């Protein structure tokens, strides 16, 4: 299994990074994102101070998770809602499936939620004979394509309008001409509107769980989130335990910072607070309100003092957008629910270090992610820590372990180091003189195969120093 996930990654990444059409679409999309975010940050009087404040809020929440979660639960129950604590994805799916079958649910409408992707909720419900509609436009598109989301915030980022138009013609049987976005949205809306009114259950995620008031906070842009959480009889919010924040006023920082990092907006079009089922006299809202709090490996991460701050993540997507690796290999190559730097840090924790350690190495450690993360997670250093943990756990390749042991011996002995260097350069010069650079006999072939050969000077610096450079 370990070989398979890693091998699949290597293959997919190689294919995608050579796909210039893909690169063009992604770069084009990200160019406007970059510009919007720059404008967005400039709207803050002090963006760095806002980041620090958000970091503090999340730090406080994550380091007192027990207290804030219990407070949140208590308030939700007081509002007439239900709270279910799910240790893993299976428990969460079973709870929702049982609820659905008890209530005779045939149709579910979903607003965007990465946690439901993480636990594979939709396939579980479909298997139980329930029709699931993704109602976020991007999610709707990838659902039609039978694909996982490409990106945690913009699930259909990898497609251009032409491809979407074609997809709609084929899958929705709609008579669409051209790729006018208004027409495309209208087609999706016609389809989804019927689903909204048919659905007995709406499922959403949550961007934040507000402990002091027992509310869930949703940031959306299409209005589908509001419909999902108010039209159907039952609303289920599925969310990770790390989403809790202490106070309602914390949203004054988190909402704009999330929106700015995610899309460059000052605040998302819809910012919704939901506090339980409809009360007598209220005009709308569900009859039943459930919150599923998912652990699924998060408490293990909480126990790790060094990497605990990974739980600060507010899933804004900024680290993916800036990541040069993501920009070249795209979201699907990762083979994970969470892509990009945060996915590479998180996935080994959620799904096992031996199966997903390769992602921690699939980074040049350039640190661009860390420089943009709105809650200041030290992402690239966590990748480094993951690597150290993998080496420590002995899950890395034996050949590599031996290589570094030999390397260490050489480095610790300056004479041997100088001799080895001289010998290696001499041998390689001979080899390359025969035109064998990058060939099967070239020990540097992974370097030389697709790059011109490294220079091999006849003298090292230390030799030149001895030969006369030393005299000041």
């Amino acid at each position, binding site marked *: 299994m370990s070989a398979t996930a890693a091998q699949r990654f290597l293959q997919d990444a190689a294919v995608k990074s050579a796909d210039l059409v893909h690169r063009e679409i992604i770069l084009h999309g990200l160019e406007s994102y970059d510009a919007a975010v720059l404008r967005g940050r400039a709207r803050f009087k002090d963006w760095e101070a806002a980041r620090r404040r958000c970091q503090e809020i999340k730090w406080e929440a994550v380091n007192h998770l027990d207290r804030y979660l219990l407070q949140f639960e208590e308030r939700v129950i007081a509002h007439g809602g239900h709270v279910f604590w799910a240790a893993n994805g299976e428990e969460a799916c079973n709870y929702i499936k049982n609820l659905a079958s008890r209530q005779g649910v045939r149709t579910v409408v979903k607003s965007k939620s990465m946690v439901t992707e993480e636990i594979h909720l939709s396939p579980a419900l479909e298997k139980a004979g329930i029709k699931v509609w993704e109602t976020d436009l991007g999610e709707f598109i990838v659902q039609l394509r039978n694909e996982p989301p490409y990106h945690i915030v913009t699930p259909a980022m990898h497609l251009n309008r032409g491809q979407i138009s074609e997809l709609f013609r084929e899958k929705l049987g709609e008579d669409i001409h051209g790729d006018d976005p208004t027409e495309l949205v209208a087609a999706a809306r016609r389809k989804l509107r019927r689903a909204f009114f048919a659905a007995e259950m709406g499922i959403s995620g949550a961007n934040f769980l507000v402990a002091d008031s027992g509310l869930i906070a949703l940031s959306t842009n299409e209005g589908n989130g509001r419909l999902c959480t108010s039209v159907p009889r039952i609303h289920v919010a599925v969310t990770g335990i790390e989403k809790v924040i202490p106070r309602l006023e914390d949203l004054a920082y988190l909402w704009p910072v999330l929106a700015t990092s995610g899309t460059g907006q000052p605040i998302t079009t819809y910012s919704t607070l939901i506090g339980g089922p409809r009360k007598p006299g209220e005009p709308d809202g569900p009859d039943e309100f459930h919150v599923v709090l998912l652990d699924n490996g998060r408490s293990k991460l909480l126990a790790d003092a060094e990497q605990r701050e990974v739980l600060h993540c507010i899933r804004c997507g900024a680290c993916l957008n800036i990541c*040069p690796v993501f920009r070249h290999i795209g979201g699907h190559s990762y083979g994970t629910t969470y892509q990009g730097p945060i996915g590479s840090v998180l996935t080994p924790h959620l799904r096992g270090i031996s199966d997903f350690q390769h992602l921690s190495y699939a980074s040049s450690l350039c640190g661009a992610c860390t420089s943009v993360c709105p809650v200041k997670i030290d992402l690239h250093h966590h990748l480094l820590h993951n690597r150290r943990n993998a080496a420590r756990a002995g899950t890395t390749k034996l050949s590599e372990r031996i290589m570094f042991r030999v390397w260490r011996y050489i480095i610790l002995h300056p004479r041997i180091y100088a001799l080895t260097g001289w010998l290696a350069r001499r041998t390689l010069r001979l080899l390359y003189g025969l035109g064998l650079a990058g060939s099967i006999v070239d020990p540097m072939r992974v*370097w030389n195969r697709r790059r011109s*050969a490294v220079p091999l000077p006849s003298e090292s610096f230390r030799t030149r120093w001895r030969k006369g450079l030393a005299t000041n």
Partner: protein
Amino acid sequence: MLATNSERLEQIVQHRVSLFVPCFVDQLVPEVAVDTVKILRRVGYQVDFPEAQTCCGQPAFNTGYWDDARPCAEMFLRVFKHADVVVCPSGSCTTMVRSFYPELLSSSPLRADAIALGRRTFELSEFLVKLAGVTDVGATFPHTVTYHASCHGLRELQLRDQPLQLLRKVNGLTLIEMSRFDECCGFGGTFAAKFESISVAMGDSKAETVAATGAEFVTAIDSSCLLHLQGILGKRNAPARTIHLASILAQEKT
């Protein structure tokens, strides 16, 4: 991580620096270190090269083998123990010493030494601008040049302006900014070998932004990035060539 004024004064009075030459510079591009020596001497410093130095340990550290990297770090600390100021023509290896040694040696008796040495270790452009206080090193390089901001220098050491300040003072040099100058070139140490195709794709993108400037040369403060980039440019038969910042600054009027 700025030196205090008194430290700075002391170093300037002594005018003596120790050179830290990264292993791949020593072995593959020695002229970069030779040029570093030239510049340092030209601006009035005596240069010492402690010959027992080899490698700072970064390759093992970045690949996760901290137990193999640690003795290398310890050796490095011994070699440079008596150095007043260490200068290195690499942002990446300076980062290793200044930012990562304290963590690597967190439970070693040498941790305090590591922190102290980190404060005395400087990347070349950082040293010239911040410590020596020079931006004009008397160089002449009548060519068009574009600058790539190497990641470690930029994001670990916050070296944003120093290299550019130096380049702007070079006689005859025309600086052309490339788009996304701060996006990684795709080198990344063992990443370049483990994930060849991703690394090469990133290098290709960089090569394209270099080509778009039309500059004759692309420069940076790290030979590692430049070796990778030269490999990519070479394979594409691109006209632009790579050159280390030190090699530009070392050029004098002929």
